[in-house]
């Protein structure tokens, strides 16, 4: 019997940039990367879906505002409602927030500058499709590259996010301690990523897909894909 490899669909929107890197990361780590198109109204046979980074629709109106109405997004919503893993990275995170699949919004960085650098992330919750098997407090390194990554939410939403442990990652120093110095965009409570109630929908600004190959830098993305593969297959099995 051959072992089934996790099939991770990566959606290309007009203006997506990191779709190829995401597909490559999936393949590099032993999964099967399945290219998907924003205009498709049905999902192919996949175990997880990843919305990659980039500038879908030129970030017109607001980041992710137009992509969330792509034909594929209805299918993604149904997929998420079934409990299947849906991951949004950077612009993908922005799209998930606009679609209401995650609470809050991403606005212009507090510095008013585009940031492109490596950051450290502290795992806050293991109850997510990206962090199952990781321990809270674990520190991972990967890059950010965005102009609009400052997470904000209405006070009631923020209270719920923190109260129910929906924060999955916070920006921190190499020692795991969060401080303004290590918060690249002024995100509220240094929030770098969060999950929905069930934990199957996860969004984050940093790029795990750019941090998988030790030949080119830190590999903080590896354990996140390992978790995603495991979660994806668990549902299939």
């Amino acid at each position, binding site marked *: 019997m051959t072992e089934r490899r996790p099939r991770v669909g990566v959606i290309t929107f007009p203006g997506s940039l990191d779709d190829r890197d995401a597909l490559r990361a999936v393949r590099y780590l032993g999964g099967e990367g399945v290219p998907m198109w924003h205009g498709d109204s049905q999902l192919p046979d996949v175990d997880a879906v990843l919305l990659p980074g980039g500038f879908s629709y030129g970030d017109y*109106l607001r980041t992710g*505002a137009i992509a969330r109405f792509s034909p594929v997004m209805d299918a993604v919503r149904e997929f998420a409602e079934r409990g299947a893993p849906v991951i949004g990275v950077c612009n993908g995170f922005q799209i998930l*927030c606009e679609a209401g699949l995650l609470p809050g*919004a991403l*606005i*212009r960085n507090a510095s*008013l500058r585009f940031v492109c650098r490596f950051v450290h992330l502290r795992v806050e919750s293991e109850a997510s499709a990206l962090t199952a098997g990781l321990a809270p407090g674990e520190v991972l390194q990967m890059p950010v590259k965005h102009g609009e990554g400052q997470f*904000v*939410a209405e006070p009631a939403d923020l209270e719920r996010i923190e109260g129910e442990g929906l924060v999955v990652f916070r920006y921190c120093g190499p020692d795991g301690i969060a401080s303004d110095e290590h918060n690249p965009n002024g995100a509220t409570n240094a929030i770098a990523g969060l999950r929905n109630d069930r934990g199957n929908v996860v969004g984050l600004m940093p790029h795990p897909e750019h941090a998988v190959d030790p030949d080119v830098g830190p590999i903080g993305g590896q354990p996140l894909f390992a978790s995603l593969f495991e979660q994806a297959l668990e549902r299939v099995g």
Partner: protein
Amino acid sequence: MKFHFEVIVRLKEGLLDPQGKAIEDALPHMGWTNVSRVRVGKHIELDVEAGDEAAARTQVEEIADKLLANPVIEDVRVVEAIRS
């Protein structure tokens, strides 16, 4: 009939408005030192074909709430306008 509308989208009070801040920071260099609270919003114009004005307005308000503004970070206002 065709009805013309303007939609004004503003960042909520208290949210950082980087464009407003950049403009505000530039003003003292130009000699205007008495200006504060510069906020930049969006102004969107659209025409709607509809039976009557109320129907057109209802539709524009729905468009504004669903797409033109994100209620988490923005306030939106629909303004009836006459096209010259």
